[in-house]
């Protein structure tokens, strides 16, 4: 393992600060939270998505209408939705919370998330799994270390879902190597989150990528 692919907590906090700066500019909702004992902090964002399900006539089928997904996803809605009697379509709002923490054991960022209905009922691992796009499921099913598991949030002590961090360096190393080759600064957090986020329904507007190169130009 190469030492320069790892970064320390201070570097993590720096990249998060830069990321949040841009988030504030575009109203993307990310915030920095400090732990109660002030010894560390993490990034977090809450957003709401609408899940609509068809009842009775098509048991077991449900389509996610996610406001932040590209249009290809929207086309997956079964046309039957328009033929269903008025009372049968139920819409539910799901609250998603995403937290980005630093793992000192693996020296990488880790994505924690949880989801619940507005009445507080949490989504189960099964529900969450159903929301993962097909193209990611194959990769996740390949190994226990790549999968989504339920773990205790290290600051809040509550159950969250986590994408296991031990493979992070494997996919981040080529990204960082390439950015050095073309001599361009990369915000590790932006790159990393754009890779892992979509797996669990979190998409980053493209302007984050431009934000990094802007900073670089301004610094000179």
């Amino acid at each position, binding site marked *: *393992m190469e030492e320069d692919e790892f970064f320390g907590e201070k570097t993590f906090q720096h990249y998060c600060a830069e990321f949040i700066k841009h988030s504030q500019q575009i109203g993307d909702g990310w915030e920095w939270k400090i732990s*109660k004992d002030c010894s560390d902090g993490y990034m977090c964002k809450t957003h709401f998505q609408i899940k609509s399900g068809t009842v009775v006539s098509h048991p077991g089928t449900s389509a996610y209408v996610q406001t932040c997904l590209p249009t290809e996803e929207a086309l997956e809605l079964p046309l039957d939705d328009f033929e269903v009697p008025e009372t049968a379509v139920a819409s539910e709002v799901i609250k998603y919370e995403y937290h980005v923490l630093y793992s*000192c*054991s693996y020296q990488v960022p880790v994505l924690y998330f949880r989801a619940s209905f507005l009445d507080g*009922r949490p989504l189960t691992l099964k529900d969450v799994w159903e929301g993962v796009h097909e193209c990611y499921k194959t990769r996740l099913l390949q190994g226990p270390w790549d999968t989504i598991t339920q773990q205790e949030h*290290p600051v809040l002590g*509550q*159950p969250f879902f986590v994408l296991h961090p*031990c493979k992070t360096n494997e996919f981040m190393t080529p990204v960082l190597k390439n950015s050095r080759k073309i001599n361009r600064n990369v915000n590790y957090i932006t790159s990393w989150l754009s890779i892992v986020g979509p797996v669990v329904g979190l998409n980053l507007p493209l302007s984050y990528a431009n934000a990094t190169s802007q900073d670089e130009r301004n610094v000179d």
Partner: protein
Amino acid sequence: MRQEDISEIWFEYEGTPLKWHYPIGLLFDLLASSSALPWNITVHFKSFPEKDLLHCPSKDAVEAHFMSCMKEADALKHKSQVINEMQKKDHKQLWMGLQNDRFDQFWAINRKLMEYPAEENGFRYIPFRIYQTTTERPFIQKLFRPVAADGQLHTLGDLLREVCPSAISPEDGEKKNQVMIHGIEPMLETPLQWLSEHLSYPDNFLHISIIPQPTD
């Protein structure tokens, strides 16, 4: 009880839901160390506390969690080199040895996780977690080296002074807390490397409880 009323089992002691993913000795030290054995806990079959406890759908979940802790401990000790070099059957042997209380079977593999290069004086970092019931944070875990720059071995006291100074009372003051591992209070002068090799839990972590000094 009717079958349909029964949902996931969970355990509780004096109003506190018990985290199944913590070692039972740790839970006892942290919550009930001053009480006499046997430890009386309450078993629930309803109203699973979703906000407090992880779900435990099967024995596989326990195995997955245990192996995840082992992996993390080795990431700290050896940059994951030792555990990643092992075959799947070695990982299985660790879990089966623990599950079936087979000391020799477990240690045949675990001893490799307790080795370090001849040129070093210990592990890269020490896997530890410090627990206190008085904080919202479930535990303190930070990077801490077993050996100082001058080659001196760091002690348990050094660790606490660095990451949890409130745990140690001033030398001339009254002792406010007990620093407990496996139900005993090791001397603060004990080298941390030695504690990590000999007093870790099966998951290779030192789980340290800071509890108020009993007043009797």
